[in-house]
């Protein structure tokens, strides 16, 4: 499996631009290839989860903080959209960034008391925060409609063009995913991205090199939460009906499994993870809730055979001792010589 992935990587490295162009064109014409509506719905989900899993990957994969409560931020974004658009009729395009900002603020609130925590303790707190958000959404009936949820969330429209079919939402989610990937790829190649990665690798050393770890840990959390909020805000009008059961812990683990299966600390990882997990969800529909057992097994097998994930980078922290760095260093030595 490793050799196959390496071969793919090599071809990709040689024809990067061509590769990306082909992928973009394929994605653009995909909905016109005569798929059933249900198939297009699955594609929508895959694209939505690309961004959502990607936002979690920003936290878990790049700064090494272990958040498993991404569903909470997702929930904040979705409810922001649902409440403000049904009650005040505010435009989708204003609420989309606002959902992200609301989630970002909640991310800040969660991250401040947890700056000193890491590993399993941090994950427990984020899990708790996610549940708290869901339970508030369930019980604050006057605002969120409680267990009845919120119905008839208006579809977004732009200049008379109504985004109302799964096919149109497909493009909305595609644009979101592309924007997310573009911005994130810039951020991780910057000073802030390097600071995040230094915290992932070794927090003490990062401090000794004058990286203000608290600031960067909080900003990383906020960045991840922001994109999860955006996803929620875009997902609510797609479903048109949301209630608190959409944002349970299962959802959080679902997102986490995409990140782990795809590969933490890479931009492509969550995309692959999202495609695979959503595909499995559909395939395994006949076995009902047993599919969760399959996910668990899949995660365990992944941890065993390929801890860095399917497309995981060799520099991923989870890759552990399985890295073949020799060939890489030889190549680098040749280049510099």
């Amino acid at each position, binding site marked *: 499996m490793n050799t196959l992935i390496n071969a793919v990587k090599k071809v990709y490295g040689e024809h990067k631009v061509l590769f990306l162009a082909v992928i973009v064109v394929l994605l653009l014409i995909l909905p016109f290839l005569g798929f059933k509506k249900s198939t297009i719905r699955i594609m929508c989900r895959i694209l939505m989860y690309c961004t959502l899993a990607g936002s979690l990957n920003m936290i878990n994969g790049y700064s090494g903080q272990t958040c498993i409560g991404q569903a909470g931020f997702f929930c904040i974004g979705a409810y922001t959209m649902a409440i403000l658009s049904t009650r005040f009729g505010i435009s989708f395009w204003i609420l989309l960034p606002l959902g992200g900002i609301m989630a970002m603020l909640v991310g800040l609130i969660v991250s401040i008391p947890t700056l000193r925590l890491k590993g399993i303790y941090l994950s427990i707190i984020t899990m708790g925060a996610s549940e708290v958000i869901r339970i508030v959404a369930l019980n604050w009936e006057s605002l969120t409609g409680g267990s009845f949820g919120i119905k008839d969330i208006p579809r977004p429209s732009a200049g008379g063009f109504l985004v109302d079919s799964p096919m149109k939402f497909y493009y909305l989610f595609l644009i979101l995913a592309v924007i997310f990937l573009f*911005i994130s790829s*810039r*951020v991780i*190649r*910057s*000073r*802030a*991205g*390097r*600071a995040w*990665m*230094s915290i992932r*690798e*070794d927090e*003490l*050393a*990062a*401090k*000794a*090199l*004058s*990286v*203000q*770890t608290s600031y960067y840990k909080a*900003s990383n959390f906020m*960045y991840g939460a922001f994109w999860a909020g955006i996803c929620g805000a875009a997902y609510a009008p797609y479903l048109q009906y949301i209630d608190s059961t959409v944002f349970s812990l299962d959802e959080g683990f679902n997102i986490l499994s995409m990140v782990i299966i795809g590969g933490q600390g890479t931009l492509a990882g969550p995309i692959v993870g999202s495609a695979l997990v959503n595909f499995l969800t559909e395939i395994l529909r006949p076995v009902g809730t047993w599919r969760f057992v399959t996910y668990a097994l899949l995660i365990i097998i992944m941890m065993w055979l390929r801890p860095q994930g399917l497309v995981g980078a*060799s*520099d*991923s*922290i989870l*890759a552990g001792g399985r*890295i073949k*760095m*020799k060939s*890489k*260093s030889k190549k*680098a*030595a040749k*280049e*510099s*010589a």
Partner: protein
Amino acid sequence: MGEVLRTEGVCRYFGGLKAVENVSMTVNSGQIFGIIGPNGAGKTTFFNVCSGIYKPTKGRVYLCGRDISNMRPETISRLGITRTFQSMQLFKFMTVLENVKIGCHKGTKSGIFDAIFHTGRYKRDEEYVTRKSLETIEKAGLTKYAYTMAGSLPYGIQRRVEIARALATDPEILLLDEPAAGMNPMETVDLRKFVQELNRNGQTILLIEHDMKFVMNCCHNILVLNFGKKICEGTPEVVKKDPEVQAAYFGSGMIGGEVLNHA
């Protein structure tokens, strides 16, 4: 020659354990200052106090006349003390270049929005970081390893990467915690030459080391700690002859003293 780092009666207690007790010293600009002492003498604790990882229980630490006793490590590092660690704390899964780039964090200011929109500040910063890191890597003689994963390098080279990373912050004073630990004699000699060359270029260095040959040959001034207390301070010649130092290292006997004189 102004003072760079000065401590006044620094103490650090862990409950009843007096790890560092009333240590005062002054490191002047352009010096290589060595701290030696038997195992458990409190050398690393003293380092941790100087670099802000521990707060001193009593006493003060001054950097270029400025009181830094209660500051956080990242602030102290920003002001000009950069340290390396006894148990190397490299970013193992990043390349040497990326490691050194993080050392340049201090000299740059661009934020997330600069990165998203590729503003002028971002471009200036990135250019500065790349140039500076490559320069530092070259200075440390690591050019051929620049794109290698740091964790896969030999031990001696890893030590050097850690020093290079610290140098990228342009520190007023460089703190090296046992830089030669675990090195073979050849690597130790290389390291000594490297440290001396840095010093010739004006870098002030404070180092902890167990290798007597290393310390005696390269330090201008030496501080000896035992059980957290300062027992001697002075040039290598003074320290070698000091009876208390000899007693601490070899017990008080004729033979012990002779061994040290041969080092």
